[in-house]
């Protein structure tokens, strides 16, 4: 119980710092500094420099600027619009075709972009106005885009999975491969949710009536093909062992720059913006890891994660019930914390407990990522909600929130499915070995 008490103090102190609006990396780092001076020998403060230099020179982290660059370059092109148009044409007269098309456009874009807000912004800025123009309910148009955008972090490459991999020392290649099947299942579950909503109230998504010629259908694929080829190249090179995740990131970044150049989007100011965004995100990411690992170091020296693990393992309840509790806690915290903070703060505390219960670290990484997806669309701080509010002129927060809430159900079902059948995530990485 002592561990839980100390953990509570840690969380409360952290929340107080975060409430001022201080960057998460600074808040976790300061908690580490305070922890050192209160409980550890002062010499332990030198760990902050060790972690900074070790992590910034960690070869695994070289993957970050490369995958961020890949997403930034593609977001600068009109490829999001082309993906949505292709889905719209191919799904044709299906009920809720545009909304389902948005989900699959997000899934396709997610295969080349590891960021949920970038996916939601890129697809949403064009899909939402188009859906509303065609008579779709605002709530459905906004909600499905917010939820679809979350696929960007489950379908590899995924920036949060890299962060999880670094914090827990889990193979990033395995995490990426493990995200593929759950990512596809999530896209299907989100689409089923759309179908259910349209079945209940057909007026929220009027059916398309126009028939298109076969030629038009195939022409629409011209932008889908390079995106899919790029996604397959990245994952295929990791899966076949031709490239490490870092090298695959380089292939993806180069490929996306080539696609952007081919589409005529690569003008000097755009290039400058792409690279500026890339390095700023990289710095944010590395500092987040430094702050997170430093506070995790202090927590570990105080025995808090170990104590929490011991307490949870010794509880007289089945492991799945403990996992459900952890997931519920993550869902609640996800309502108030952004995805990165969740990863940096919660994972180091619960990871030892989860592995002590016999669960696979790769599997837990996928579960955590889906939890982060839920956090991204949970009010009041769901990041994707704010993304849509910003990129869609005139979008009202109440419509976005109302539309998104129902999509928490398929995501939660996905977690339940993964707890019941861990092989959904694990069979593909296992085949790889």
């Amino acid at each position: 119980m002592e561990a839980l008490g100390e953990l509570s103090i840690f969380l409360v102190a952290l929340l107080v710092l975060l409430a001022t609006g201080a960057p998460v990396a600074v808040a976790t780092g300061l908690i580490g500094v305070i922890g050192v001076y209160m409980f550890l020998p002062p010499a332990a403060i030198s760990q902050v420099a060790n972690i900074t230099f070790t992590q910034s020179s960690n070869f695994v982290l070289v993957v970050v600027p490369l995958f961020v660059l890949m997403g930034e370059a593609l977001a600068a092109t009109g490829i999001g619009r082309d993906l949505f148009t292709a889905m719209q044409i191919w799904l044709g007269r299906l009920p809720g075709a545009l909304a389902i098309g948005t989900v699959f456009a997000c899934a396709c874009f997610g295969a080349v972009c590891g960021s949920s807000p970038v996916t939601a912004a890129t697809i949403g800025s064009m899909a939402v106005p188009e859906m509303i123009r065609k008579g779709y309910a605002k709530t459905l148009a906004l909600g499905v885009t917010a939820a679809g955008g979350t696929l960007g972090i489950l379908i590899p490459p995924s920036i949060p999975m890299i962060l999880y991999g670094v914090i827990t020392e889990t193979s990033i290649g395995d995490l990426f491969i493990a995200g593929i099947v759950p990512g596809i299942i999530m896209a299907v579950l989100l689409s089923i949710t759309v179908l259910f909503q349209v079945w209940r109230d057909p007026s929220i998504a009027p059916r398309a009536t126009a028939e298109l010629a076969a030629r038009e259908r195939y022409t629409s694929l011209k932008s889908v093909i390079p995106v899919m080829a790029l996604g397959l190249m990245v994952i295929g090179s990791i899966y076949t062992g031709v490239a490490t995740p870092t090298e695959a990131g380089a292939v993806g970044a180069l490929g996306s720059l080539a696609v952007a150049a081919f589409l005529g989007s690569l003008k000097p100011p755009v290039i400058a913006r792409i690279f500026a965004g890339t390095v700023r995100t990289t710095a944010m990411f590395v500092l987040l890891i430094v702050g997170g690992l430093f506070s995790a170091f202090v927590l570990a020296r105080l025995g808090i994660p170990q104590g929490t693990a011991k307490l949870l393992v010794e509880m007289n309840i089945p492991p799945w019930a403990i996992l459900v509790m952890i997931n519920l806690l993550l869902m609640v915290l996800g309502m108030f914390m952004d995805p990165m903070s969740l990863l940096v703060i919660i994972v180091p505390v619960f990871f030892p407990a989860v592995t002590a219960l016999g669960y696979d670290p790769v599997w837990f990484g996928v579960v955590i990522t889906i939890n982060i997806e839920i956090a991204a669309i949970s009010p009041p701080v769901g990041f994707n909600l704010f993304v849509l509010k910003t990129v869609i002129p005139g979008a009202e927060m109440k419509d976005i929130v109302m539309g998104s809430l129902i999509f928490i159900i398929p995501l939660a079902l996905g977690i339940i499915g993964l707890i019941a059948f861990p092989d959904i995530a694990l069979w593909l990485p296992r085949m790889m070995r």
Partner: protein
Amino acid sequence: MLERLTRRINRVFLIISGWLAAAILAIITYDLVLRNVFDAPTTWALDTSRFMMVYVFFFALAPALEAGAHVSVDIFEQNMPPKVRRWLQILSMLFVMTFGAFLFWQVTRSTVEAFQDDSLFPTFIQVKLKEVYWIGPVGVAEFLLTALSMLLARWRSGPEAFARAPLAMSPQERTTTLSEGGV
């Protein structure tokens, strides 16, 4: 004066960092091609890209702070009246400076030791620690200066400046800004 100085330095740092990121991309691709096409992997690409990553990070640290790219949980602060928001932002910048000061102290200490020891990295290519570490204190010092400049700007602004966050950006700027600070 300080604001103009830090903005200029940050612009230069951002450009250097961007070029280094491009160089990392080129080096890793070059090695991948040599290994898989010519069966002749380099011995230096892996370590060089690692060391360049240190420069990318420290050069971009302050520009990221200036652009508001470091993720924060602002739900509490955003819902406060302008007067309270101003004080919270001043407080948060003081926290940034406090952590930055500790980081600067420790990173400088490690760098001074690296210069005194003159030791090598335990890597295949022979690189001295000091040749990589020197950028640490430089990057964190600029981070501290940027935080100080932002603190002074907040201190000087009246509560009316904190009434509403500016959202008047082009779609491209929005996408770029959103990608920073989010996942």
